[in-house]
């Protein structure tokens, strides 16, 4: 039977086999269907692991951030309390109370004596520096 006499629906066995091989071996190396399935599952699993790892890091970072925010809030709170305490202790009422507690009495401006010195002139500052030069 010549080539032309062969029925067209029947391809030659080796060519068909080669076609089928190309369908199943898309990569440079040979890989059967089972191996391909296993590799695919492994790859998907690896990607899932990578994703979960990234997610875990993100969550861990989030927790760290939350902890830092909480720490910042606590420090701000402490700072505000300290500012309030300082303001209280700088207040005239507190100082007066502490002074009284220590036995001090308020100064009476009416007891200030005004002494009039006639013809008093200020000493020029240059003279002062000259006189008290080390």
């Amino acid at each position: 039977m010549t080539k032309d006499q062969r029925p067209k629906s029947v391809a030659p066995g080796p060519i068909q086999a080669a076609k089928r091989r190309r369908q199943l071996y898309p990569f440079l190396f040979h890989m059967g269907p089972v191996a391909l399935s296993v590799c695919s599952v492994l790859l998907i699993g690896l990607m899932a692991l990578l994703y979960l790892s990234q997610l875990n890091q993100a969550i861990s970072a989030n927790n760290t951030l939350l902890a830092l925010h909480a720490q910042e809030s606590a420090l701000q709170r402490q700072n505000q309390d300290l500012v309030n305490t300082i303001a209280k202790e700088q207040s005239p009422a507190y100082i007066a109370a502490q002074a009284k507690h220590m036995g001090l009495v308020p100064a009476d401006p009416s007891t200030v004596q005004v002494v009039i010195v006639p013809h008093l002139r200020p000493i020029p500052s240059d003279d002062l520096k000259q006189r008290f030069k080390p």
Partner: protein
Amino acid sequence: MSQELRRARNRQMLIFLLVCFGMLILLGRLYYWQVVEAHSGHNLAQLALDEHIQNIVLNAPRGLIYDAQGRILATNVVRDDVYIEPIQFSVDHPDDYQASLAELIHSLHHVLPQVSEDRLYKDFNSGLQTMRIATRIDPTQSQQLQAMHLPDIFLVSRTWRVYPQGTLAAQLLGYVTQSDTDNQGVYGIEGQYNALLSGRPGSLTAETDLNGNPLVVGPSTEQNPVSGADLTLTINSDIQFFVEQGLAQAVKQLGAQSGTVVVLNARTGAVVAMAGYPTFDPNSYWQYANQKGCLGSEDVYFNPALYCAYEPGSTMKAVTMAAALDQQLITPETTLVDPGYITFPDAPTVYNWDDLAYGTETMTQVLEHSANVGAAYVAHNILGASRYYPYLARFGFGQPTGLHDGPEAPGYYRTPTNSPQVWTPSDLTRQAFGQSIEATPLQVALAYEAIANGGVMMRPYLLASIDNNGRDATTQPQVVRRVISARAAQLLTGMLEEAATIGLAQTAKVPGYTVAAKTGTATTQGISDSETEASVAGFIPAQNPQFVILVKIDRPQATIYGGTAAAPLWKAIAQQLMEYYQVPPDDLKR
């Protein structure tokens, strides 16, 4: 193909088609729930988002308020409120409820002794989901509760406005209401500048975890809060404290009902101190809700310097003289005969307050003696209504002073223009010596400020500067208008100096300093003449004025006159100011 094989293939096809049909139905339902219902109908997408996406409001910190020296007058602290979950507690302890409850209450009461155990039992039996049992606990109590990890107890933080200096300048500052939802400034600076102090809250929209904590590393949108502006006032805390202490002591010693003091910078109009008694503590403002000031007419929260209009009495004589001096109708040496009374054809007779006759006296002596006869004579016989009332307006009477643009009492007096039906010349004669006219303490102080500042009235101000997140704005002294000429101001200053040296205001004289001051003892129509508003208004040093001081004591009992009731406090404040600011003495003659 054999028949059996064909039948097998047909069965395969049928099963395949059935499976495809089933898949199609599932896909259709999936499409329905994921696409159609997600964004319309039940809006499932939004419901899902609402489940795990939260919008958290980020509160803006309220701006601080400082005094002129940078000391804090108002700040913020964070304190915890304590909540319990009664229902959850009963669910968590079905078998040993009583024993666990007793232990928990004992622990709670140990940390929070202010909450009684009986009250805690009652709260736990309330049947509520959550309940607040304590508010604004101390930081040490918060730490103790957090360390104890008590079940079904949680703390919620809240920001509170606090005033570290207690009652200092309370009526100037106002207070901030503390509610669960909103904090608002009320009265004073807190009320007037509430929007500026509040800032702008921010927001954080993010997915949350099981505990409600935002997952900030996920998709989120954040708008940062804008902090409130910090305000610096012109008040000096030391002087304010001295003034408040002195005023409280004077009111108590004199058996008075209330009192007010105003201290202004004579050149700029800045408020150095402003005090009222009684006052309140803004840290516990709610305890003063029933207390009154301004002789019982206003709540104690109102600043009496701005709201308590009164009849100024003889301190107004300086204004009457200013009007006549400025129009060159009199000089300090112009004389009149004072027989102790003066009659008018169209007004009732006016008598001197002490019923004394002074004979021939100069205008300067009218102020020294605080003679009503002389003042009424100048207003009625020399000035007349048409030349007197414009000066009252120029001195700011009957108008708000414009202090931080807030509400205030404008005061009132009748004129032929505003009350043509009821005004009579009697009003003119009486207004000349400070009756039939109402003015606030700040208005009277500003009138004297204009005299002290060479005839130029400055606008009073309390806010020195604003720091709005790095953007600073400083208040500049502002001239309102020229009230009288510099020459008239100088002449009047000399007259007031004499009044303080040898007149009724002698008690206000500060050794070593020239003082220009006038006393006032005002009565109110319909009330006994022994119920007075005793006041002194003036400035120091007279020759180079630095400070204007007004002291007003309401209804003193021990002594009713301005020269004896108000002048000692005026002198003490003036001395303190001279000492504090190290103003050199200028009275070298006496």
